[in-house]
């Protein structure tokens, strides 16, 4: 149901843009107003979410330790999986954010007869990391539309990405790989009954938005050509705040439409994991809570419990019978207080 709904949303988006630009000619609305609004939503929304998280304290150090703690000198510890210092935490986070360390650990459990078998299962890691890095590269590549002169490094990325010189204009590797990765991420949600069971519309929708974004981009580059000079004049206008919507094919506006939808959807969805991953207390803290006294929760009070003296009063008889010593200090203190 979720997948159908998401698909309909995406189709509706294409239709709306098509009608809006192709038929009604509302280039200003779809080329300027909506993208600006979407970008603003993205920026403000994400900052708002971040502040929302930041306002909540982290009362306990609930590190998930995936390696040996620091203890005795001669015990080899795992600095990356059980970080003791903040520097090691940074390394752990870098590994997590840039290499998807935890996902790399993934296993697949299978019940074969009476035995549970575990095997390494890195496809999800591969799909995820391929997708994320391609997305980032594509994003960076697009910087050529927002800069003049285009920085050498952007051009270099462009060259590397089109290294194989397939077709004309050259096919970007990232375009091909991101399509494959997206397809994998999508198909596994449909094909694996467990994933199908847990997947919601909000899992399919961003996938479809990105699909739409990528496909419209590829179509524009290789099939339905648009005048790229006009496009760049427009994008440069956007960042200089006097945009003139280009008179180019609807495909461009569909591309922009998907981008706007994605940006606007970002802060309200699971996509906030982009920033949230940095704030996960099981990963971003040092496993040194026995060595360092960390700041307790703002609401922390010394816990109220039955003190020894209260307890001794209760079990006085039993203590005496068992020959256990009574603490005279209890009575001294009492005397003082009274």
């Amino acid at each position, binding site marked *: 149901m979720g997948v159908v709904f998401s698909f309909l949303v995406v189709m509706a988006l294409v239709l709306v843009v098509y009608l809006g630009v192709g038929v009604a000619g509302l280039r200003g609305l779809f080329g300027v107003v909506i993208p600006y609004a979407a970008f603003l939503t993205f920026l403000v929304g994400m900052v708002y979410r971040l502040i929302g998280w930041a306002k*909540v304290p982290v009362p306990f150090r609930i590190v998930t*330790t995936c390696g040996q703690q620091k203890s005795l000198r001669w*015990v080899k510890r795992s600095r990356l999986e059980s970080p003791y210092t903040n520097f090691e935490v940074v390394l752990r986070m870098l590994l997590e954010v840039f290499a998807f360390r935890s996902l790399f650990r993934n296993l697949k459990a299978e019940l074969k007869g009476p035995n549970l078998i575990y095997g390494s299962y890195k496809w999800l890691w591969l799909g995820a990391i391929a997708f994320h890095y391609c997305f980032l590269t594509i994003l960076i590549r697009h910087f050529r539309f927002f800069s003049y002169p285009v920085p050498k490094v952007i051009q270099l990325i462009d060259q590397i990405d089109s290294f194989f010189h397939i077709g004309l204009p050259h096919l970007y590797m990232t375009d091909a790989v991101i399509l494959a990765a997206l397809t994998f991420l999508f198909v596994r949600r449909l094909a694996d009954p*467990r994933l199908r069971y847990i997947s919601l519309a909000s899992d399919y929708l961003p996938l479809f938005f990105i699909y739409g974004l990528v496909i419209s981009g590829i179509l524009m580059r290789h099939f339905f050509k648009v005048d790229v000079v006009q496009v760049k004049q427009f994008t440069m206008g956007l960042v200089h705040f006097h945009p003139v919507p280009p008179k180019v094919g609807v495909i461009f506006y569909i591309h922009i439409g998907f981008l706007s939808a994605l940006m606007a959807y970002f802060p309200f969805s*699971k996509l906030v994991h982009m920033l949230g991953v940095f704030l996960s207390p099981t990963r971003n803290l040092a496993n040194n*809570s*026995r060595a360092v*006294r960390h700041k307790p929760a703002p609401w922390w009070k010394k816990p109220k*419990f039955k003190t020894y003296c209260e*307890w001794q009063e209760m079990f006085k008889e039993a203590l005496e019978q068992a020959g256990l010593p009574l603490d005279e200090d209890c009575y001294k203190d009492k005397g003082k207080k009274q």
Partner: protein
Amino acid sequence: MAKMPKPEELIKTIDYTPPEKDWMDDIPPKFLPGRYCYPAKPHILEEIGFPNPREWSPTDEDWKLPPNWKEIILDGIKDRLSKYRSFKVFMDICVRCGACADKCHYFLGSGDPKNMPVLRAELIRSIIKGELTWQGKLFGKLAGARKLTQDVIKEWFYYYYQCSECRRCSVFCPYGIDTCEVTMMGRELLHLVGCNINWILEPVRNCFIIGNHLGLQPHTVKENIEYLCWDIEEVLGIKIEVPFNKKGAEILFVTPSGDYFADPGIYTMMGYLILFHYLGLDYTMSTYASEGGNFGLFTSHEAMAKINAKIYHEAERLGVKFIIGGECGHMWRVKHQYMDTATGPAPKNLETPKSPITGTVFEHAKSTKMIHICEFTADLIAHGKLKLDPSRNDKYIVTYHDSCNPSRGMGFFEEPRFILKHVCNNFYDMPENTIREKTFCCGSGSGLNTDEFMEMRMRGGFPRANAVQYVRDKHGVNTLACICAIDRAALTTLMNYWVPDVQVCGVHELVANALVFPHEESGERPRTMDLRQQPLKPEDEENA
């Protein structure tokens, strides 16, 4: 207690394919015997001041929730979202990638899709969306949102008491989402409307009032230990004294109360006492802080802090220098991760732990002043302070179960293995994917080790048992060593069910078996029995 199916029948019922019906429409769960725990008795709730005490049963249609239960729950959610970043972030960033799905032992043992960690979290996440966000209110099910109903409370009760807070899923989650946090919040919310289980709250109440989970009164504690000392005398030929409530001792020793009288925990307890006697350690036990474990962890952050606090309080009163904690799983998660921030600073009289035997300073415990007995013993062995004869454990072919809490809440892997490799000659680890940070729960953690929950316990323990079975078949393993009191009880039941020829023991039981006392060395009275008073060598049994 429900009748248990045979192991091979139980395996046949495990199916990982989820049902056709959408999970949001599939509530409430069926409360089948053996799959849920009995509710807390009203007098217990009253005694510890928990709300809504009443007689009820999960199988009832009406759970007698307070009239404003919905408001209470929603306020409770909002309150917790503003207090715990873990909870808030985890509720926001899950992408439902499914990496956690087949990591949960309850899922692997039951195939119940709501035991997939992702869905366990979704049980609350969907309510947050549906009740507290405009997107959820607007798009409903499409946004993964649903309304809070009594059936949802029933579902929560069922599934948050089918999670043993083992955190295995958290290891594999790309964002480190920790289902333990979610379950803790879920249980706290359930407490607010009086839905809780007796097996947890009675120990909590006992701990608050008497001093330990089992409710052993001071004289009982002392007597139990004395019985153990007699047994020690049988085995060792020497009489040992155990100091209680001794002011001015150097070390306070706390251990879970299960070790006072439950088999096979008592052998571990004997192990500690023998070791301390061997060293001539200046230590004391306490009949007031007579509990190392902390069922508060399974209840609420407040309850946990409250139980913890007694240990520092006692350490202050007795004027000890530092604290050694016994072999216990969840106890060590609490002592390691919560002792300081939840309970508060260690009393001033405590010093950074320093082994009086080897002089090793335990820098990594310089704030909480509390070390694990295995850290202590491993250090002794590393310094050659113990005369050990590992051949005394030759009849044991040992594997080691990493308890969830020290593994994933502390990073405690090498110390116990180091000890085991020095006290016995036959040690084999279980397959890599089932040990260390990937270890499997005994199936009975987080206060679920109760008999009425037996079917789920056996299901949840299946992955662990299966790995034990593997090393049994491959290496002839007959002993499963662990460092957790709940494990010692729960794994025994689990092994009896799945892998009947494997027994369970604590690490220090094996240490004491191997420990060579001077009078034994001199041949004055050689050791012939192990702590269980069985002949050291099987052939001796045949001869006798």
